[in-house]
């Protein structure tokens, strides 16, 4: 049978199923194959906090959305063009996001009366006409998978488990994805269990062949590679990029990297990744708690390593006292906060930007420290390197903010040439007469990094206020006032790049973003400009200190819109710093902004 091939410029697919159905893996594989093909892409995984909620229920639905295109894109897409639903729960949980006319592929084997009742379907949506305005494909994914694996010595349950690979194969056929990498991946993953490996490979190929032969699908789609700067690319999630950035940063600073960490969603992948990298001189320490994790990192920095701790909001709360100690000790330290919904346990697997004020001010005393925020998954690499630069050059703890959206989301990343990375080397203090541990570099105001093992530099430091220069304990009123102001001046004087404004048309309205709102804001800007609207855009990645030109930029625009996934935390900082009114656009739904929402909010301001 000859099939039509249709060229498209972009597609958004959402894979949805039970937590146990392997949807994250399916999505990851499709994404990696898409990166190899050379499309631009962005992903949005969405999974429940429960490891295995009861099978077939709405709370147990896990999904993975991928947007890929033949041109540069910014987000994982507002609404999917295609939904792959592995059961009735996955269909029900995702239908509200599906625009009319979109394609819905369901595993019809799972649409039993019992499964339908479980999620509150009174009639079968595949039969009752409720999906009339969609292109629905009911595919017997489970039974075809089991059938394809009949020759293998597997229980029915084991065979059924490979149905995600059948689905992946089918979609890979439909969108002309290369298959070698996934076959290689499966071979490596299941090398120790040959039957399971065989099952996955056979199911994957069977799905592909099914697409090729079935009359159910008459069309397959081609999406050409996106033009990109020449180089070697790979798919990259934010957490992975952050881990690599820390390694690269420590390497460029010629320092061993020490990570103290305690497992916490959504930051644990940073610990997992760094644990694999002993070959790069990385030491990881899974501590007994969040406090010990940061404590050990401080100890390592004191000894001359790049001490790092990775966590999320609740962990930051626990670490505050130790971070205050690092402020006082004036030692390098990086605290990575992969933000999630709060307060308290909040929404562990969902995204939010609500730790900003906590990291700025959540410590006793005047305790200033630099705060950086990564904007996209791959920007996590660059900002991690920046965190190393600032921590080591200024001998200060640095907060690096990411969030669940960019931590788990991914995009293509051009692997940088190692030679192109900056030199971040700083000198330790050398043996000298009359060493003064709190004498400062006049440029940076950094104190010497005097590590144990250096003869003649024996000295004592601690959390009690220090006398200027000598570092001895001091309760002197004037000295305390001086030291508090000096620590503040040091952070305020950190060299950060100017804010870049994108304003080709001389707009009156500026959309300001920070952190992971970059993608959605950029996508909204493109839509707005296509519609003839004049809007400027700027993105803040350095929150403390702010870029030096921020005040000037703000003063140029009568209206500044600031979307945040919190109730206006950066807006509060900007108002107090620049006395500039800000039009806040806030959402705390555990999800990134959609392009449509941002476009509408901006139009309201433009027209209002």
């Amino acid at each position, binding site marked *: 049978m000859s099939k039509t091939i249709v060229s498209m410029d972009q597609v958004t697919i959402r894979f949805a199923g039970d937590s146990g159905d392997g949807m994250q893996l399916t999505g990851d594989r499709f994404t990696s194959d898409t990166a190899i093909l050379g499309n631009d892409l962005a992903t949005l995984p969405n999974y429940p906090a429960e490891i295995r909620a009861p099978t077939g229920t709405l709370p147990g639905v896990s999904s993975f959305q991928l947007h890929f295109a033949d041109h540069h894109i910014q987000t994982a897409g507002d609404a999917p063009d295609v939904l792959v639903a592995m059961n009735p729960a996955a269909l029900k949980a995702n239908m509200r996001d599906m625009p009319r006319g979109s394609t819905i592929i369901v595993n019809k084997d799972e649409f039993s009366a019992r499964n339908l009742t479980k999620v509150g379907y009174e009639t079968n949506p595949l039969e009752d006409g409720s999906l009339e305005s969609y292109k629905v494909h009911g595919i017997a994914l489970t039974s075809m998978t089991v059938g394809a694996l009949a020759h293998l010595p597997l229980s029915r349950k084991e065979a059924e488990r490979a149905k995600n690979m059948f689905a992946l194969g089918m979609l890979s056929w439909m969108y002309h994805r290369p298959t070698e990498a996934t076959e290689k991946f499966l071979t490596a993953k299941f090398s120790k269990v040959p039957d399971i490996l065989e099952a996955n490979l056979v199911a994957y190929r069977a799905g592909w062949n099914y697409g090729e032969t079935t009359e159910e699908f008459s069309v397959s789609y081609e999406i050409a590679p996106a033009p990109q700067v020449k180089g070697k690319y790979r798919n990259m999630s934010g957490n992975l990029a952050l881990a690599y950035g820390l390694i690269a940063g420590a390497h460029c600073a010629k320092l061993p990297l*020490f990570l103290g960490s305690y497992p916490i969603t959504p930051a644990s992948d940073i610990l997992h990744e760094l644990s694999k990298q002993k070959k790069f001189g990385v*030491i990881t320490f899974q501590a007994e708690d969040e406090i010990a994790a940061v404590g050990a990192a401080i100890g390592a920095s004191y*000894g001359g*390593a790049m001490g790092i701790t990775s966590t999320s909001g609740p962990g930051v709360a626990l670490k505050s006292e130790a971070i205050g100690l690092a402020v006082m000790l004036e030692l390098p330290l990086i605290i990575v906060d992969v933000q999630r919904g709060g307060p308290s346990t909040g929404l562990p697997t969902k995204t939010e930007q609500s730790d900003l004020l906590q990291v700025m001010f959540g410590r006793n005393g005047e305790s200033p420290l630099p705060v950086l925020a990564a904007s996209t998954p791959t920007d996590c690499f660059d900002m991690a390197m920046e965190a190393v630069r600032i921590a080591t050059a200024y001998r200060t703890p640095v907060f690096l903010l990411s969030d669940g959206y960019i931590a788990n989301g991914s995009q293509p990343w051009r692997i940088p040439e190692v030679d192109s990375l900056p030199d971040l080397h700083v000198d330790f203090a050398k043996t000298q007469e009359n060493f003064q541990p709190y004498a400062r570099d006049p440029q940076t105001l950094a104190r010497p990094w005097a590590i*144990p093992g*250096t003869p003649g530099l*024996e000295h004592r430091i*601690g959390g009690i206020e220090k006398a200027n220069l000598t570092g001895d304990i001091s309760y002197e009123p004037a000295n305390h006032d001086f030291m508090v102001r000096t620590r503040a001046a040091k952070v305020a004087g950190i060299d950060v790049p100017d804010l870049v404004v994108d304003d080709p048309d001389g707009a009156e309205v500026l959309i300001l973003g920070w952190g992971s709102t970059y993608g959605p804001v950029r996508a909204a800007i493109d839509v707005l400009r296509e519609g003839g609207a004049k809007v400027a855009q700027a993105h803040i990645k350095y929150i403390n200190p702010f870029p030096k030109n921020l005040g000037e930029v703000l003063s140029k625009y009568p209206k500044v819109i600031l979307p945040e996934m919190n109730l206006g935390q950066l807006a509060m900082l900007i108002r107090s710093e620049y006395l500039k009114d800000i039009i806040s656009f806030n959402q705390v739904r555990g999800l990134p902004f959609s392009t449509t929402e941002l476009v509408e909010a901006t139009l309201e301001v433009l027209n209002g």
Partner: protein
Amino acid sequence: MAEITLTKKDFTSDQEVRWCPGCGDYSILATMQAFLPELGVPREKIVFISGIGCSSRFPYYLETFGMHSIHGRAPAIASGLTISRPDLTVFVITGDGDALSIGGNHFIHALRRNVDLKIMLFNNRIYGLTKGQYSPTSEAGKITKSTPVGSLDTPFNPVSLGLGAEATFIARTIDSDRKHLTGVLQAATKHKGSALIEIYQNCPIFNDGAFDTIKDGNSREGALLHLIHGEPIKSTTHAVVRKDDGDLEMRPLSEINEVDIVVHDAHRVDPTYAFALSRLHQ
């Protein structure tokens, strides 16, 4: 290269010592300053990390590297240091409140990890720096500012706790016995791994006389059991024997045969024997 020419003076910093007159911390400090030259490790390779409390001022008075950190967290900070810098000799200075209350979690995990740390726990069975509240090693019923009708809690026995935390080296000593404390420091610094040294330390201001039975010239030799590897465990009046059920007990010398006295084995891997020893005073 060991700097064998160093003396006690070389390890004494220029900081004025600020403990109360008569505090047991003075004698521990003097013993440490005298011991460090014989350790044979250059000054710059020695680090003292303390938490918060009277004893945690200790690092200021030693001419080595030192960090006076935050309450209870010294073992965590010291772990990060010793793991990334195995060339250093790292001591943790802590007290009963610092190690066993606010820092209890770090204390037990440092011991079980067995990283190279020498933890010196100054046990005065009271909170000194906050001016006299009961501590996790205060005896039950203790009347203090925060327990006007007597504390209700059962105290920790730091040695038992350390054994439960899988410590590989534990010793108990006392501030006033310079010779014994020095011997313990020698053994602990030779030990590769975490070492717990509990030091009974008198606080003359808030808990004076807590250890008088083992300090007083009249009672001391009767009350003190010296644990010496390969030698019978006895004081001048009592000795340790094994009961029929396998447990250890203290009996007057007059009631037992010399051959029945338990001979100390400092290297026994199974901690049950050490645990039984740790419970003897109770």
